[in-house]
C-alpha cells in the first residue's frame, strides 16, 4: 500500500460550544474517490474547509502526500496540488466563463506580477481553458458573464476552474446539489472519467451518485466519523441506516 494522498489525524474544530468536526481521522489513497456523507450540519463543509485551509483546525494533523499542510494558508495548499469546489458557488461574477477558467490556468503557470502584457491575449491559456470548459460541457457558454449563468452551469464552472489548477487532490462540496437530473447524470459521468487520475473527496447528498462513484464512503454524524468502508459495508451498517440513510428515506 502506498502512502495516503490525504491523511487526517484527529482533526477537531469547535465553534464555541459546538464541535463541528470531532477527532476525524481518515486516510485516502492516491487515485481513490472517497465520498463523505452525512446529514445537514454534520460538519462536512467544515471538514473540507480545514483541509483547504480556509479554517484552521483546533487539534490534529492534516497531511497531503505525506507532508503536514495544516499550517499553510489556502493558496500555498493550492500550490501543493490541492483544489476544491464550493457548495455555494464562488466565482468572479463580472467576468466571462472563459476568463474565470483562464485566470486559474494563468495562476497555475506562475505568479501574476505581470503588469503590462494583455492578460486576455494569451492564446495558450485560452486553449487550455477552453479544453477544461469542453470537459465539463460548458464550451458553448464560454463568453457568457458568470452573473448571467444558470445555477447548474455555475456548478460545472466551479469544477472547470478547480481542474484548471491541475490538482492532485480535489475536494468537491456537493457538486450535484441543485442540478437537474440530466445535469447530474453529466456530472457523474464527468467525475467517473476523472477517477483514478485525480484523488477526490466527494461530499454529496445524492446517494445514487455516491454509490455509483465512490471507492469508499465515510459517514459523518455530529462531526464524528461513524463508519468508513465500501458502498456495501456502509449500506449494510445498521448504525448508519438508522442515523442517516433511514432518515433520508431512500
Amino acid at each position, binding site marked *: 500500500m502506498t502512502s495516503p494522498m490525504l491523511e487526517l489525524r484527529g482533526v477537531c474544530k469547535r465553534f464555541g460550544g459546538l464541535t463541528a468536526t470531532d477527532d476525524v481521522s481518515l486516510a485516502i489513497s492516491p487515485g481513490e474517490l472517497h465520498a463523505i456523507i452525512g446529514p445537514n450540519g454534520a460538519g462536512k463543509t467544515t471538514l473540507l474547509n480545514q483541509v483547504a485551509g480556509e479554517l484552521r483546525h483546533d487539534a490534529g494533523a492534516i497531511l497531503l502526500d505525506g507532508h503536514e499542510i495544516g499550517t499553510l494558508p489556502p493558496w500555498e495548499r493550492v500550490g501543493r496540488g490541492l483544489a476544491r469546489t464550493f457548495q455555494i458557488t464562488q466565482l468572479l461574477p463580472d467576468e466571462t466563463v472563459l476568463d474565470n477558467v483562464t485566470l486559474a490556468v494563468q495562476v497555475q503557470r506562475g505568479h501574476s506580477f505581470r503588469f503590462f502584457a494583455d492578460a486576455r491575449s494569451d492564446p495558450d491559456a485560452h486553449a487550455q481553458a477552453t479544453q477544461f470548459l469542453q470537459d465539463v460541457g460548458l464550451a458553448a457558454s464560454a463568453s457568457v458573464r458568470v452573473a448571467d449563468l444558470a445555477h447548474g452551469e455555475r456548478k460545472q464552472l466551479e469544477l472547470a476552474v478547480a481542474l484548471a*489548477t491541475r490538482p492532485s487532490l480535489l475536494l468537491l462540496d456537493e457538486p450535484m446539489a441543485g442540478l437537474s437530473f440530466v445535469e447530474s447524470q453529466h456530472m457523474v459521468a464527468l467525475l467517473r472519467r476523472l477517477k483514478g487520475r485525480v484523488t477526490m473527496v466527494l461530499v454529496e447528498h445524492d446517494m445514487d451518485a455516491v454509490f455509483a462513484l465512490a471507492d469508499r464512503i465515510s459517514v459523518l454524524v455530529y462531526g464524528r466519523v461513524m463508519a468508513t468502508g465500501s458502498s456495501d459495508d456502509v449500506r449494510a451498517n445498521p448504525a448508519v441506516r438508522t442515523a442517516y440513510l433511514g432518515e433520508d428515506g431512500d
Partner: protein
Amino acid sequence: MTSDTLEARRSGRTYAFPMSRIVIFVIAVAILALVPAGATALHMPSVTGFATQVLIYAIAAMSLNLILGYGGMVTFGHAAFFGVGGYVLGILYQHSAQRSAFLALVPGTDNLAVALLAAVLIGAATAAVIGSLSLRTRGVPFIMITLAFAQMLFFLFVSLKTYGGDDGLMMRRRDVVPFVDARDDISYYLICLTLAVGWLVLTWCLVRSRFGAVLSGLRQNERRMMAIGIAPYRYRLVAFVIAGAGAALAGALMANYLRFVSPDMMHWTKSGELMMMVILGGAGTLFGPILGAAAMLALETALAAYTENWQFYLGIILLAVVMTTRGGLSALLDRASGR
C-alpha cells in the same frame, strides 16, 4: 479554440478598447493640448489654470480608482499620499532656496523632474508602510486605519514648524526643468497633460494585465482567488503602492502649480473629495476619474460663485448624479452613445 468562440469573446470583452475608442482618445488629447491656445484666443487665461488643476486631480483620482474602483479597497486616506508628494516638492524647494539640506544630508532641488521622481518614490514608500499595516484588515477597520494614518500625517505636518506647520510652505517660484520653461503656465499645463495621459496609459496597461485581472478578481471574490492559489495581501499591497505613487505625483504637481503646500492637502476632506471624483465619474472605469475630477472642479467653481453654502448644494448634486446614473458619469456617457 474555434473562431466562433473567439468572435464571441471579442464582443464580450469587458476591457475592450476598439479602434473607434482609440480615435476618440487621440482626438480628445489633441483638443486638450489646444486648450491653452483657445483660452488665449478667447482672452480667458484662467481656463488654462483651471484645466491644469483638473488634470492634476485626474491623476490623483485615477490612482485612487486603481485600488478603490478596480481593487475594491475602500480607503479613506488617499490624500495622505497627495500631501506627501506636495511636501516632498515643497521641502526640496525650500532647501534649495535656503542652500541647506534635509536632515543635513539631502540637498534641496528646484528641478521639477528630480522633485517629481522623489515625490513618486517617497509616496510609494509611504504607501508601502501604510498599506502593509492597513491591508491586514478589511472593510470598516480598513477604512478607519487608512483614515487614522492620514490624520497622523496631517498632524505630523501641522507640528513641523520648520516646514511652515499649520500655515504651510510657500514657494517663491515654480520648479524648473532643462530645455522647457516650466514656469510658464502653458508649458506647465502641457507637462501636466503629458503626465496625466501617461498615468492613464499606465492604468490601462495595469487593468488589462494579469496583475489587473487578479486585482479585480480579488474585488469580486476573495475566496475564489485564494482557492486558485492567489495570496491576496501581496497583490493588494502592490496596487496600493502604485496608487500611493500616483497620488504623490499629483500632489507634487499641485504644490508646484500653486507654489504652496499645507497640511490641508492631506486632510480627510481631501480624501473624501478624491473619493467623490472617482464615484461621480464612475469607479472601476478608465475615464471615469478624469470626468469626475473635471465635473467636481467645475461644480465647485460654479457653485462657489453663487453661494457661500456651495458645499451643501454640491452634496445634493453629487447624491443626485450618483443615485440616478448607476455607474457615474462615464456610464451615463456610455448609455448616451449607445454602448
